[in-house]
């Protein structure tokens, strides 16, 4: 309902002097089911905006953000996009959910207007993609890739042969699961089960009992946060043991997962886009700044919003004018180092204008996320095999 109410509203952030400012358009979710992620984005934008304007703004002008709330609805996001186009912004960034960003990307491609994606992960946003859509964050398939890289490392000491996948049936979870399926085949794992579940499901026991009967070496889970907690609790309850438990989506990498699942979260390896421990300069400082802006534990979504805004400011600084083609060319030539990671847009593996930044893997150890694997390799020891539930 909320998303259908057909509403949007403008939040104007103005920092510093508002004379001759440059507006940047943003669409994300402040209300509706994705509101929590919009709040994370807001923290990232605030930190980046302060940094940009403190460094003299863009082309000598102070930057202002025109932020539209899409109320977690496709229809409202499209209305917001149309409105932003009329507000004299040179570039637009958006949105949280892939189901919202997909139609937005289509729209801006048709309008031939530069659009920067910073959180949405569906492969389809940049594959096939278009000349006008740029993405700084990792596509869904890479969530699975990093975890399969971890399996490769672990195989030095453990024999991992079979894998069972459980995933939600949303766009993003589905894409990660599909990637896991093809990677299993490509890298020689036996996929013994792949089961999807509908949103709002609360009883995972039948699925987990099915897995138990097959005793897979790897249990591969793709879920949002609420489900992540319920799944791990029921994994313990059903006594499903495996050598490796991985959670390949947002749900397992959020602080809420640790709070809700507590001791059952232990040993779970998750894929995440960014942590404070990544090997990029300033990551620790960024974490602290985001923490302050959000007032609580920031997630990688905040860092993505931060890096997205920096990318836009960088491209605008290099562009001689504010017409769409010029900005598009400037974006295409981006080569930026940020505390989120390096940002450049290339075409590879069927992706277009996609930043090839790698994912990071972390493991829950003693009730906290520990970064264990980055593009540099193993950075902290990975605990494996996971002890059976009886012996914990």
């Amino acid at each position, binding site marked *: 309902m909320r998303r259908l109410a057909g509403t949007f509203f403008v939040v104007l952030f103005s920092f510093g002097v508002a004379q001759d400012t440059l507006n940047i358009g943003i669409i994300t979710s402040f209300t509706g089911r994705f509101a929590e992620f919009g709040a994370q984005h807001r923290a990232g934008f605030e930190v980046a905006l302060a940094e940009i304007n403190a460094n003299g703004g863009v082309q000598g002008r102070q930057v202002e953000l025109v932020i539209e709330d899409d109320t977690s609805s496709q229809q409202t996001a499209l209305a917001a996009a149309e409105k932003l186009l009329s507000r004299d912004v040179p570039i637009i960034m958006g949105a949280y959910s892939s189901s919202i960003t997909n139609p937005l990307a289509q729209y801006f491609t048709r309008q031939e207007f530069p659009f920067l994606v910073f959180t949405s992960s569906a492969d389809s946003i940049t594959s096939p993609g278009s000349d006008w859509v740029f993405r700084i964050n990792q596509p869904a398939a890479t969530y699975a890739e990093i975890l399969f890289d971890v399996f490769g490392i672990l195989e030095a000491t453990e024999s991992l042969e079979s894998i069972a996948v459980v995933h939600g049936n949303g766009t993003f979870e589905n894409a990660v699961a599909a990637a896991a399926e093809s990677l299993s085949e490509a890298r020689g794992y036996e996929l013994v089960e792949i089961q999807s579940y509908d949103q709002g499901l609360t009883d995972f026991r*039948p699925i987990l009992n099915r897995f138990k009967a097959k005793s897979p070496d790897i249990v591969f889970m793709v879920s949002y946060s*609420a489900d992540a907690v319920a799944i791990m609790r029921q994994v313990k309850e059903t006594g499903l043991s495996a050598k490796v438990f991985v959670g390949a989506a947002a749900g397992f990498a959020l602080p809420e997962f640790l709070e809700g699942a507590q001791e059952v979260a232990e040993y779970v390896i998750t894929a995440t886009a960014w942590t404070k421990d990544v090997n990029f300069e300033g990551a620790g400082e960024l974490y602290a700044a985001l923490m302050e802006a959000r007032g609580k534990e920031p997630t990688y979504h905040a860092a993505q919003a931060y890096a997205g805004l920096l990318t836009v400011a960088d491209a605008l600084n290099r562009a001689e004018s504010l017409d769409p083609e010029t900005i598009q060319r400037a974006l295409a030539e981006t080569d930026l180092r940020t505390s989120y990671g390096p940002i450049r847009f290339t075409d590879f593996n069927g992706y277009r204008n996609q930043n090839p930044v790698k994912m990071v893997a972390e493991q829950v150890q003693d009730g906290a996320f520990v970064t264990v694997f980055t593009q540099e390799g193993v950075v902290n020891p990975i605990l494996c095999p996971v002890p059976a539930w009886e012996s914990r």
Partner: protein
Amino acid sequence: METAVALLQNISGGILIGGVYALVGTGLSLIFGVMRVINFAHGEFLAVGMYLALVGHAAFGLEPYLAMLLVAPLGFFVAFSIERLVLSRLVDSPEQSTLLATLGLALILSNALLLLFGAEPKTMYVSYATATVNLGRVTLSIPLLLAGFVATMIILALYLFLTKTEPGRAVRATAENRLGAELVGINTLAVHSVVFGLGSLIAMAAGFVLMPLLFAIPTVGAGFTLKAFVVTVLGGMGSISGAIGGGLVLGLAEVLGASYLSTGYRDAYGLIAFLAVLLLRPEGLFGRTIKRV
């Protein structure tokens, strides 16, 4: 042998989940039986129960089962007032009016929760969340067993209330024949309010017992409303004992379907059973013949 154990495991899982469904369905069935109102806000009361449990736990460190007893009067009062304010004005309106009013109430309740608690899922950590007990080689969840116990107690209490007490008899008289009840001096409007309060309170109780197992989001109710409909139609609308049977059948259908067919269609199994019963045996699987077509 392994398959036999797995089957037993699945059947017991279905029965335990079914117990929770039965509890949710009982409240809806009670309301329908007496008021002839199809309450689309039923699941939202369950959500309210979840958040009440959450608040009790976070603010006072209360166990959800204990908190349930403490906030029950408050929950009853909320539902009672809603009936007084809205539904009691619609007693003589066409049934579609009450249906719409409850849809409106559902929107109001879930969005009030959204405003108060935000959109992100909330979980509650209790030490026994994953505790189990083994029966032979079958593993049973202790919170689910507790939920089943609470459900049994509540349904038993409701049964005793309806059959052994004077107000309970007034409720049954109203359900049988509202006009007749009026004639023997029963204030049927008051009975309606009380019944709506009780039925909604039962939904809230289901929210309490589910909280240690699940998570609360403001929109969690809609799915349970649908489940409650399925349960009551399977068991026979307005029949309390039917709701128990309906809950167990739904639990078994879902768990067995998900275990031996595809899990993606899990919700469909219940819905297909629901349609089949609605069309082939409209009085419910266990009910006596009542005409509803």
